């Protein structure tokens, strides 16, 4: 079987779709990492976003309503990390573990109490995101499949990736953010309100992840399933690590996972059992981590002496 028949345009299209939530979550993670707040609650944040999006879409009858719900409620949910890890000086790792479990429990509880179902909630009243058709390129092979027929959130995710990169490295706000992360006391001496930068960044990142959650539940499907984030938030954490808090490198890592994900879908359609193909993205993630850290081994001695404590 040739490679070209293995990689089909629709496969690439679905890969691009599946990258979106991970990309937004990874973007959120890099932002938090840059201001010195370790965020590994994206798994829970995506779940809250996905649930709020379905509730919003169901209640308002519009996909936009769903997206707004997702952003608002994920930002509210992120208040826990934003204040807990900064103002209250709690341990970010413990807070994030708690948030992930809270998201899982709370969405399952509300699913039962609000809609009277457990497992999966689907209803014709949930309006999904429509795909943007670009007529000019729609019929061009490949390009039409990749760039047309994507949701507005997918477009936003890539635009935001560029915007965040520019903001981070080319604007005074970005400079201050990086300063807060690299040396908080020095930044404070220079007159930057460290706590305010941290809180606002974590909340903004929460909004990004909420958007990712909306793509998850309203993008390809219009349903909510318990724990439907299914490890995507954790993959985003790895993308942040691989990208060393740089949005573009993190985005590249997300593309790698998207390809792995698409590959697993494709292998499944070749007749391999889904229990095995589902594993592919996580194995690729682990391998990528192992490889990237192998290269860093030489610098490791220096690294452990400085930086993180």
């Amino acid at each position, binding site marked *: 079987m040739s490679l070209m028949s293995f990689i089909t345009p629709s496969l690439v299209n679905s890969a691009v779709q599946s990258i979106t939530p991970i990309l937004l979550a990874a973007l959120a993670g890099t932002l938090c990492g840059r201001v010195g707040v*370790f965020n*590994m609650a994206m798994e829970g944040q995506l779940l809250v976003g996905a649930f709020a999006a379905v509730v919003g879409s169901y209640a308002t009858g519009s996909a936009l309503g769903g997206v707004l719900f997702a952003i608002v409620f994920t930002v509210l949910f992120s208040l*826990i990390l934003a*204040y*807990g890890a900064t103002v*209250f*000086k*709690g*341990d970010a*790792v*413990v*807070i994030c*573990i*708690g*948030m992930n*479990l*809270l998201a*899982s*429990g*709370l969405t*399952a*509880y*509300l699913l*039962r*109490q*609000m809609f009277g179902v*457990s497992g999966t909630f689907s209803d014709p009243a949930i309006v999904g995101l429509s795909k943007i058709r670009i007529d000019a390129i729609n019929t061009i092979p490949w390009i039409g499949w990749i760039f047309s027929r994507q949701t507005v959130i997918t477009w936003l995710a890539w635009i935001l990736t560029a915007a965040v990169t520019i903001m981070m490295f080319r604007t005074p706000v970005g400079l201050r953010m990086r300063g807060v992360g690299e040396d908080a006391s020095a930044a404070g001496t220079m007159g930057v309100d460290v706590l305010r930068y941290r809180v606002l960044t974590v909340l903004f990142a929460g909004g990004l992840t909420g958007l990712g959650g909306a793509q998850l539940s309203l993008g390809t499907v219009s349903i909510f399933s318990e724990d439907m984030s299914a*490890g995507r938030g*954790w993959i985003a*954490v*790895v993308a942040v*690590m691989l990208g060393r808090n740089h949005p573009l490198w993190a985005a590249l890592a997300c593309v790698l996972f998207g390809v792995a994900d698409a590959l697993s879908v494709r292998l499944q359609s070749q007749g391999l*059992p889904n*229990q*095995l193909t*589902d*594993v592919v993205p*996580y*194995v690729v*993630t*682990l391998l990528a*981590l*192992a490889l990237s*850290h*192998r290269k*860093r*081994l030489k610098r*490791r001695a220096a690294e*452990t002496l400085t*930086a*993180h*404590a």
Partner: protein
Amino acid sequence: MSEQSVRASRLPRIPAVPLAIGIGILIGGLLVLASGGDPVAAYRAILVGALAPSNWPNTLNWAVPLVGMTLVAALPLRGGMVNLGGDGQLVIGGLVAALAALYLPLPGPLLIAAAILCAMIASGLYASLAAWGETRFGIPMLISTLLLSYPAIGIASYLVGFPLRDLTTGLAQTRMIPEAARLPVIAGPLNIGLILMVVVAAAVVFFDRRTVAGYELRMRGQNAKFAGYGGVRLASQQVRVMFASGAIAGLVGAILVLGSLYRYQDGALLTPGYTWSGLMAALLAGGAPLGAIAAGLFFAGLQTGGFAMQRETEIPRVLTMVLQAVIILFLAIRHGVGRKSS
């Protein structure tokens, strides 16, 4: 990032835990109220369900795996390390125990011992893989333990779904294990697993308080660099601790398979969520073994009570998971559970 660790050596001040539980109950009650339920009835049902003498065996039966998974989390936490891979280790232990029980040609008690031993070794090795990855390649264990769970669960699920499937039933599960391999019953739902778990819990407490290795682990939790300068070989310690942690998870899996399920069933070990409840119990006590065991018993009571609540009031028992998370979050935020000592 490899130094991302939870320094959980300091116990939370005494009033912190009751206060957190109070806040958890309050927030949970408000949630019940907001969703149109009666919080008083809900909590009464939980209390009666957990504490009525006739329900003690159920609570204890739930406590065995939960306290086990609490120890799985508490042991590394004592040294400032986090094992998020309990699910994968649990599944490997359960599957290996079932396969050993099905295929090893050994007589009764020996078969049980061999199955448990195989399960503990397999899970221990899998857990120490993450530790090795961190010490050898610098892959943060915090994330690698979690990621390693996915292939373990997926492959186990494939094995019982296809090559090892019991074709006489419609479910993804292995054949029933022979009578000889089943853990002897003490009374009702309770089996020898309870005694095994008490022994392991006592061993962990003894290790923590009375052995050099236990002291070294606590020292690492207080200050890893200091422990290193003091002569603790950090890398090998990390691998050993993770092996022990994984082995306990393997034991839990074996107890569940040999003691109550009598076969490996896809998903059956994971749906009760022992791993995460155990992790939260361990965090509640800051990794201290005795406190963690107490917290594990408390959460076990909460969950058996949750079943009673769901039966009596139709309030979903997943509420108990929300309660656990709120308690941990409150503690982490208000009193800095595991706050870094720097």
